[in-house]
């Protein structure tokens, strides 16, 4: 009973996170300005981290944790570099 409940709620959480990623992708593709696209990319990274953690719970393996950590780290670097580029027109001056 409880195992069934857990597997169904994992499935529902995956669907919700996929919908959230779809919203972020829409903002990434259609954002009226560049800063909207960067914000969509940042949201996409966070949602992907959560989706990978959910995959890890589903398969009961800690392998997905490292992938989630790397994606979270890359999200920070990418957003910081893109914000720097929007501000100054250069990433490394």
């Amino acid at each position, binding site marked *: 009973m*409880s195992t069934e409940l857990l597997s169904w709620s994992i499935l529902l959480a995956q669907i919700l996170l996929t919908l959230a990623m779809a919203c972020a992708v829409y903002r990434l593709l259609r954002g009226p300005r560049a800063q909207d696209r960067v914000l969509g990319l940042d949201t996409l990274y966070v949602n992907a981290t959560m989706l990978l953690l959910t995959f890890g719970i589903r398969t009961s393996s800690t392998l997905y944790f490292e992938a989630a950590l790397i994606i979270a780290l890359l999200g920070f670097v990418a957003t910081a570099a893109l914000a720097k580029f929007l*501000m100054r027109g250069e990433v490394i001056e």
Partner: protein
Amino acid sequence: MTNAADLPAWAALPTALLLLLGAGLALTGSLGLLRLGSFYDRIHAPTLGTTMGIGCVLLASMLFFSVLQTRLVLHELLIAILMVVTTPVTLMLLARAALYRDRSEGCDEVPPPPPLPPAPDLPGGAPQAQVSAKVVERT
């Protein structure tokens, strides 16, 4: 490695609830990103997912693996610390970049820049004029 079917009910129930709460908050934040009107409204919305949302999912993961492996599994705290440290930094950088771009394009929806303090050290004051005249024209 043990299976998820071995998980007792008292741990499966909070795990399921925390997962659903986290995913629902992430979806709410992303819907806000989709629906809100201006960029400065939209930048607030995804923080629902980056604070409470990912916190709930990380708590669910910690609870699940701790009960499953019958030892304390705390490496999810790494992601939590990373999120807490990096999210304000990136969003602040992004908001300041957007504000700079809007001001340099002469958009009248943003407040004007604060008046520059007098700089007695600089002998001419010319470099500030050059900096404020720099206009970014990308979209």
